[in-house]
């Protein structure tokens, strides 16, 4: 699959974007700017965390997924379903009903995303007990965390375990199973139902490896709506002939939740979820302030995948529901077909080394970089430190950096403009034009249809 260097599943719809700067301010890598009244992305900085998607008030950021009809290009159509999908549905709508509905929608087979988690736990424990590798071992489960480390904490990339994620194990297993039945790859389409944008990016443009064998991805919220529609229109689950039961035991089922991995690892493990918590901890780790931790399970979303940007149900209710279900698993109904592929999966479990993906802040040449940074520090003497984003950048610091890199001009700062106007060094008409250049022309005209205004919905 050929992809641009920095592929991102999230796209900003320019015609929908109102240039409100909410996204600019939440981006953990300061990858967004407002220009000409729209939000723009520096693609080399984006880690696909989806915080921008969450805060956009007009749904101008979308998660590009495959057209559902793409599944019908294949004779065998496999839904790769992570447990978090099943957790979205209320009690009573059990996995066997969801599988039945998915088959009714056109899939011919189901494979669960965590079937390989048991083998994965073994491999993680092997790595954790190998004292020749960097510790703490950092999980590779959350692709947004992996990319955050590559971009913002390059020195910690050797800590990331070069082991594939559970969904890759499931995909490799099901792919090989069909091969063993004599069915060519071209007839088998594997479609992953994704709770977030980062997983898509990991599939389309993996950090280090290129053989996930997944043919496409479908957004979780899209599938949720489709499944709910079928259930409602048939008059409820009582009219649905159940398919097979879930094939996951309790620990596999909870793998994608906070603590799911760490609880399977021997040694001192921490599970940390939520973007800010993860960043704070990585800072500490990078400062060498953390001793004797063996394993880190880091998840970008609060409540891990239950908080995925495409997960429609309330994350806390989902966690509670999944924890209860995990206690009720009927061990006799589980089949372990994947165990037959153990050796094959083990042989293909590794990714290549995960390398830093440093986005250049100042200059490749250190002396030039120092000169630019000193210039930024001088500019910061004049900027107000309010981080209002009126210049289009998330912070005064980011604005100063943009200026030094020639991407903006210092007088885009509204406070400096006021000062210059006061000193009669800037014409007020010119000042308004500068602001319009950032926020769009006519942006400051009366408009009663904007959010919160009196004709909001008309």
């Amino acid at each position, binding site marked *: 699959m050929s992809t641009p260097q920095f592929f991102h599943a999230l796209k900003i719809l320019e015609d929908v974007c109102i240039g409100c700067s909410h996204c600019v301010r939440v981006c953990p890598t300061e990858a967004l700017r407002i220009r000409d009244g729209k939000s723009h992305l520096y693609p080399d900085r984006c880690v696909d965390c989806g915080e921008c998607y969450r805060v956009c008030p007009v749904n101008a950021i979308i998660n590009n997924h495959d057209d559902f009809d793409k599944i019908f290009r294949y004779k065998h159509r496999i839904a790769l379903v992570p447990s978090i999908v099943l957790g979205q549905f209320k009690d009573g709508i059990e996995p066997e009903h969801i599988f039945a509905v998915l088959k009714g929608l056109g899939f011919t087979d189901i494979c669960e995303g965590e079937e390989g988690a048991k083998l994965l736990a073994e491999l993680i424990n092997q790595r954790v007990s190998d004292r020749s590798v960097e510790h703490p071992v950092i999980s590779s489960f959350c692709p947004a965390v992996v990319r955050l480390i590559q971009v913002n904490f*390059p*020195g910690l990339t050797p800590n990331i375990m070069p082991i594939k994620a559970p969904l890759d194990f499931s995909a490799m297993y099901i792919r090989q199973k069909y091969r063993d039945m004599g069915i060519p790859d071209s007839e088998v389409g594997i479609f992953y139902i994704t709770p977030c944008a980062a997983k898509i990016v990991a599939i389309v443009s993996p950090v280090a490896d290129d053989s996930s064998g997944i043919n496409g991805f479908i957004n979780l919220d899209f599938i949720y709506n489709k499944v709910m529609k079928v259930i409602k229109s048939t008059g409820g689950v009582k009219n649905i002939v159940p398919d097979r039961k879930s094939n996951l035991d309790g620990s596999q089922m909870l793998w994608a939740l906070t603590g799911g991995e760490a609880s399977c690892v021997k040694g001192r493990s921490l599970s940390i979820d939520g973007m800010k918590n993860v960043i704070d901890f990585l800072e500490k780790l*990078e400062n060498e*302030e953390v001793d004797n931790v063996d394993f880190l399970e880091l998840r970008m979303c609060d409540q891990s995948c239950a908080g995925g940007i495409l997960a429609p149900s309330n994350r806390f209710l989902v966690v509670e529901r999944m924890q209860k279900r995990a206690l009720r698993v009927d061990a006799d109904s589980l089949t372990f077909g994947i165990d037959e592929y153990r050796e094959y999966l083990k042989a293909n479990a590794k990714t290549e080394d995960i390398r830093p993906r*440093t986005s250049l*802040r*100042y200059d490749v040449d250190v002396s030039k970089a120092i000169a630019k*940074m000193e210039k930024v520090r001088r500019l910061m003497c004049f900027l107000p430190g309010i981080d209002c984003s009126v210049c289009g950048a998330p912070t005064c610091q980011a604005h100063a950096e943009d200026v030094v890199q020639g991407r903006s001009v210092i007088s885009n700062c509204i406070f400096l403009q006021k000062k210059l106007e006061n000193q009669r060094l800037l014409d007020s008409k010119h000042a308004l034009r500068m602001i319009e250049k950032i926020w769009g022309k006519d942006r400051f005209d009366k408009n009663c249809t904007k959010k919160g205004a009196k004709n909001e919905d008309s």
Partner: protein
Amino acid sequence: MRLDYKVEGGDFARAGWASSQVKKVLKQLGVDQNIVKRVVVALYEAEVNIVAHAYRGEIGVDIDAEKIVMRLEDEGPGIPDVSLAMQRGYSTATPQVREMGFGAGMGLPNINTNADIFNIETKVGVGTTLEIIINFKSNQ
């Protein structure tokens, strides 16, 4: 480029602030990660030494294209026997300090391992000044 920080003796909650800031600067400048790591370890140890042993101190950092020079000057008890303090595991930290996870006696030896040039000047009853230099282009 010049960076200055103040360190208060006994303020363990803030110990590591200067090394964390210097780390950010070096990362942004694109300095090699392994060098950044050495700077962070050396500066963190030296900073914690001021917090654990001295009354107050000042850290001055000079960065140019070739190297980083860190000068840590404290007002404190000084070190009566420098060669003893340079031995791994030797520590005069109080039990209280050790309880907080500091004072393992690795401070000065760790700085020495990570520095290209390491100088100590100390006067008992007055204070200690450390100079730590780490070159960006590794000559090892």
